[in-house]
């Protein structure tokens, strides 16, 4: 029994941290948020050159091996620096589904995705706003040739403006609330009848609504088996949820540094505020929740990589991370008080980004419900 990272993972964490601190400075992050694409094509290209888009995928499909643990240390570094890149959407979920689908169309797209020249993003959420299969209701009619006709809207689709394709989860058979009856389809964002609508949001994240106006795709666009889309999707989004949790942990770790640093410098009532126990409590809350998140991420990632039964571990990691995503910014604001509210200060960037990461890939309610499912089984 040993929960430590391996040395090569520690080294990778160090490399990733130095890379993102150099390339994704907070000034650059502010600029990318204001840009039309909402991310950094340069950092994205450099990550591709480093092979980080192929990480976590087997060599047989063009990956470089490694697992969720290796990815998690990169995500922690991205969280620390708020580096905006469509890695989770495209290199983890997009490539993961394409690899699992193993159809000719999916195989053709895999290499462009792993090399970063194409971006493929999942389109899952609807106005139900839940995350599980129960929340997927958008209908797709199965046509005689095995193709699909899609009608409806998907929302909160990340980086859709930069994506060549979206992976749409649609209901092809009745039985809302069931994981069966969902089919995944690969749809070009430029296809006739597909409309993107930008969704301005608190996080400053490139989020879009994707509307399908009776969009027809051929049978080659169906990913995996008809009505078995959730089976294909679930293991991929489990990995992704752990990585989102790692990203939150990185942000919390940085918020801790910012808060402790401010508490050591800021003086009120004749002494630095870090001497007041009330302020010390606020800082230690961040430390505790960041540390618990890192342990739960490491444990879930380790189980996934070892192929061991995961049980509740993924949901425990994301549920804890979601708590941290609310608590760490709240405590950091309390330490900084009024100044954290001001745009010139960096805290608000973390606060806003955490709002998206918290609600992405299962909010706290969703993951606690999954934990309860396992307990009650």
């Amino acid at each position, binding site marked *: *029994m040993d929960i430590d990272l391996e040395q090569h993972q520690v080294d990778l964490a160090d490399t990733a941290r130095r890379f993102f601190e150099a390339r994704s400075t907070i000034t650059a992050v502010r600029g990318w948020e204001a840009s039309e694409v909402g991310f950094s094509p340069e950092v994205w290209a450099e990550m591709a050159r480093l092979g980080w888009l192929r990480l976590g995928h087997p060599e047989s499909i063009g990956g470089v091996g490694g697992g969720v643990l290796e990815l998690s240390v990169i995500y922690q570094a991205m969280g620390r620096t708020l580096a905006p890149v469509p890695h989770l959407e495209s290199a983890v979920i997009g490539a993961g589904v394409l690899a699992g689908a193993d159809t000719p169309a999916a195989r053709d797209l895999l290499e462009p995705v792993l090399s970063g020249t194409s971006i493929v993003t999942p389109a899952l959420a609807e106005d139900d706003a839940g995350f599980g299969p129960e929340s997927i209701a958008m209908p797709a009619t199965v046509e005689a040739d095995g193709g699909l006709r899609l009608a409806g809207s998907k929302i909160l689709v990340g980086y859709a403006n930069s994506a060549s394709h979206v992976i749409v989860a649609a209901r092809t058979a009745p039985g809302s609330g069931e994981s069966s009856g969902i089919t995944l389809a690969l749809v070009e964002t430029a296809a006739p009848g597909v409309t993107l609508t930008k969704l301005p949001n608190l996080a400053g994240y490139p989020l879009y609504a994707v509307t399908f106006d009776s969009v027809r795709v051929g049978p080659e666009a169906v990913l995996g088996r008809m009505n078995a889309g959730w089976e294909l999707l679930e293991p991929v989004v489990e990995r992704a949820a752990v990585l989102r949790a790692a990203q939150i942990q990185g942000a919390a770790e940085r918020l801790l540094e910012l808060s402790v640093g401010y508490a050591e410098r800021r003086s009120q009532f004749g002494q630095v505020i870090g*001497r007041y*126990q009330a302020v010390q*409590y606020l800082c230690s809350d961040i430390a505790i929740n960041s540390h*618990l998140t890192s342990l739960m991420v490491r444990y879930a990632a380790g189980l996934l990589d070892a192929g061991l039964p995961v049980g509740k571990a993924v949901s425990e990691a994301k549920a804890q991370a979601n708590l941290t995503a609310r608590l760490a910014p709240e405590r950091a604001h309390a330490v900084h008080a009024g100044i954290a509210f001001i745009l010139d200060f960096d805290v608000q960037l973390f606060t806003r980004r955490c709002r998206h990461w918290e609600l992405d890939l299962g909010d706290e309610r969703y993951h606690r419900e999954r934990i309860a499912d396992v*307990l009650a089984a």
Partner: protein
Amino acid sequence: MELQLTAAQNEWREEVREFLDTELPAEWERSTEWCEDEDFWEFATGFTRKVSAKGWIGLTWPEEYGGLARPPIDQLIFSEEFTYHDAPLVNTIGWGLAAGALLRGGTEAQKQKFLPPIQRTEVLWAEGYTEPEAGSDLASLTTRAVRDGDEWVLTGQKTFTTWGSHADMLFTATRTDPDAPRHRGITIFGVPIHQPGVSFGPLLNIGGGRQNHTFLDGARVPHENMIGSEGRGWDLIMGGFYGGNIGAAYMDAQQKLDKMVAWCKTARRNGRLLIVDPVGRDQLAEMDLLVQAERLLTYEALSNIQSKRPPAFAGAIGQVQSKEAVTRFAELTNLIAGRVGQLAVGSAWAPIDVASGGPEAWFRTSIRNHGGGTPQVKRMVLATRGLGLPR
């Protein structure tokens, strides 16, 4: 990273379970030392001696002092099973605190003299740290020890001495140099209890148990019972319980959670089973998160011990988390149980057993929350030593 136990470790777990199945009565649910029940004490002492006979007290100690020199993971597996099954071990101060200090700071002669009787559960130790005016601020302790030839003479009062009236030795922190800086004038002694200079007064607690005031009035201690060196007792105190005795408190919570889940499958609230009630389910999930946090902090502590690395954040996160979690955990059991949760065990209407959510859960929670230092003190350690904020 290795998250699986080896075949040998799984066999060890089975061996421990079989022992517990054999030696504990069915439906046994009394684990703690916090009650003053002579029948319980007699059973627990006899049980602990059987554990000693297996060699499992002192499992990780070097062989020359009666130990089996087993690795820390074996101790953790042992602790997990003993805790989950409420196994009633006595002499935790002996094999935990005193043995740890002796192994770290004792002379060879002291190790030879004191450790084997602890291993055999022949000599029982109680803790003599806390004083009426030295609780969280332990370094302000005033119990005096004055040299008198080959002996030291102790005068002062200790308090919260659990099972003191059953013990043979008091692991006592004293002030030997009142002029030294306060952390440098403290010395530890193993004080024989059965002598005229040591007496006890009962300190009855809300759980129906007893701690003690311990009065030291000219108590005499041979110089050879000084543990560690003169004036350096604080180092031993900060060393805490012996690292090799890694505990598994989360298995106590896990057991309560398992029982609560089982109860929720049969109990109704507002006309439906609690296990399908969204609020109840959410509360069960929160309990699970608290258990899992403590489990992973323990795995991390094990990894630290195995790689001989100091813990992150001065080790304070695990202490704060476990102390603060117990109160929330007990609160959740009571929120789920609802108004029947106030009923004492024994009533047919009491929701679940003593260990799971009944009144005693609160008493135990209170003790775990403050015993060994309040969470507020641990938070101070976290902020100053862990995060580097100013004192």
